[in-house]
């Protein structure tokens, strides 16, 4: 009898433990209880996320993370950054080491099989930045075996390179700063990088210039989004709503301010039509 009671009691305890775990199974609840968000970020991707001259992590994405902490927990400093490399960002989210990633990450269908994205917070086209002393103005001139063309090891960039610049020598590197270094040291003639990052490098370096890519697939838009472990609807919904409000809703003024501060220009309009006409 005693044994039966004991096992019944243990079963009850186990059950309550499970129930408690179930009620708590969204990261949203975990984060509120923990009173801190943990965010994966880059440190070599200016102006989105990089270390400034004072050794501080700053950038568009870093400001976003601080604001998310403020909205969730009332204090913009309740955020812990985990600096990752590009091949460490997805495992960081999938293993639960971070609550989400803000790593200049492009939405890509193959990726969406294993990782969840919010709607995009940033449209990025592609830009080509070349050494001024290479004497080229147009991307088509780069299609020559005497020139070396550096890109990130990401599939869209590789596909574009093979299709549009089959004759240039190709270099695959793994961070924007490595691309920059390759061109600065003369290792490569030009590099391809997301437009906001290219704006930053062009702005900061007199010996570099942008190549004309108008009307080519380089000018097509790609979309950067927050990513997280899939399957947690409540958490995804919060972050997706947050991005939606930033991009086209109540937080648009904030979006304008960050755009001007980090990208030195105005963001795309809040709506694709003139609201005052309707």
């Amino acid at each position, binding site marked *: 009898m005693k044994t039966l009671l004991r096992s019944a009691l243990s079963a009850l305890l186990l059950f309550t433990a499970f129930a408690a775990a179930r009620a708590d199974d969204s990261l949203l609840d975990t984060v509120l209880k923990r009173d801190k968000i943990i965010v994966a970020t880059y440190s070599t991707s200016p102006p989105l996320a990089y270390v400034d001259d004072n050794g501080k992590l700053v950038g568009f994405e870093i400001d976003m993370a601080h604001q998310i902490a403020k909205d969730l927990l009332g204090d913009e400093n309740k955020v812990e950054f985990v600096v990752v490399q*590009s*091949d*460490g960002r*997805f*495992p960081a989210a*999938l293993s639960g080491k971070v609550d989400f990633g803000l790593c200049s990450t492009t939405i*890509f269908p*193959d*990726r969406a*099989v*294993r*990782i969840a994205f919010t709607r995009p917070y940033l449209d990025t086209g592609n830009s080509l930045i070349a050494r001024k002393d290479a004497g080229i103005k147009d991307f088509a001139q780069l299609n020559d075996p005497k020139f070396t063309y*550096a890109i*990130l*090891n*990401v*599939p869209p960039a*590789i596909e574009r390179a093979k299709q549009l610049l089959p004759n240039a020598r190709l*270099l*695959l*590197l*793994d961070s924007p700063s*490595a691309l920059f*270094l*390759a061109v600065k*040291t*003369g*290792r490569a003639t030009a590099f391809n990088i997301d437009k906001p990052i290219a704006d930053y490098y062009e702005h900061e370096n007199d010996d570099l210039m942008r190549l004309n890519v108008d009307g080519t697939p380089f000018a097509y838009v790609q979309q950067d989004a927050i990513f997280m472990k899939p399957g947690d609807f409540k958490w995804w919904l919060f972050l997706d709503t947050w991005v939606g409000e930033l991009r086209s809703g109540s937080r648009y003024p904030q979006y304008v301010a960050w755009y001007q501060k980090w990208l030195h220009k105005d963001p795309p309009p809040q709506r694709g039509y003139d609201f005052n006409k309707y």
Partner: protein
Amino acid sequence: MAIDLNFLARLLPDLLQGALVTVELSVLTMLICLVWGLLVALAHMTRGPLGWLAGAYIQIVRNTPLLIQMYIVYFGFPMAGFAFSGFTSGLLALCLQNGGYVAEIYRGGLQSVSARQYEAGRALGMRRWTLYRVVILPQVIARVVPPLANQAISITKDTAQVAAIAVMDIMKVAQVWVESSANTYDVFFAVALIYLVLTTIISLGARIAERQLAFAS
């Protein structure tokens, strides 16, 4: 987390192509270091500026990270007018660093042979070359094979760092796949397995060599 076998089947041909580059780099590094390391070791054991220079070389290459050496060769040399390809830069950095380690292995082997062995050979009237061929070298070789095999394994794993300087070795191929698929676990699991196969082959080769040498001496 379950392993996605269909995904691995799509991944494998690319990985094996990268593995070929890894094998090429490893084998070339090992062969070059076998000769280069011996030269450095012999230089290090002489007195005077040559020995001093060899000592400084060993200290510098062993005590700085391989990745930095690769960056210096790959990004730094072009500024001085020497633009080697990624593969050549990687090979050069791997040989520079591992040459230092291999030299120390040889030196250990050479110094472990007791001075009495030399004296005994000379007492028997052996010429210098005969003394080395019959008495000293067989003992040295038997002693350096196990640490050299260790070094070969370490070289194979070190080659992964050439991914940072745009060489399409197995690690770089893996990174490209991770970027497109977000399937980090499966990709790196397969890569680790391939490295394990490569290093196991080296270990087995070393064991056979050790056994042969044991018979020989």
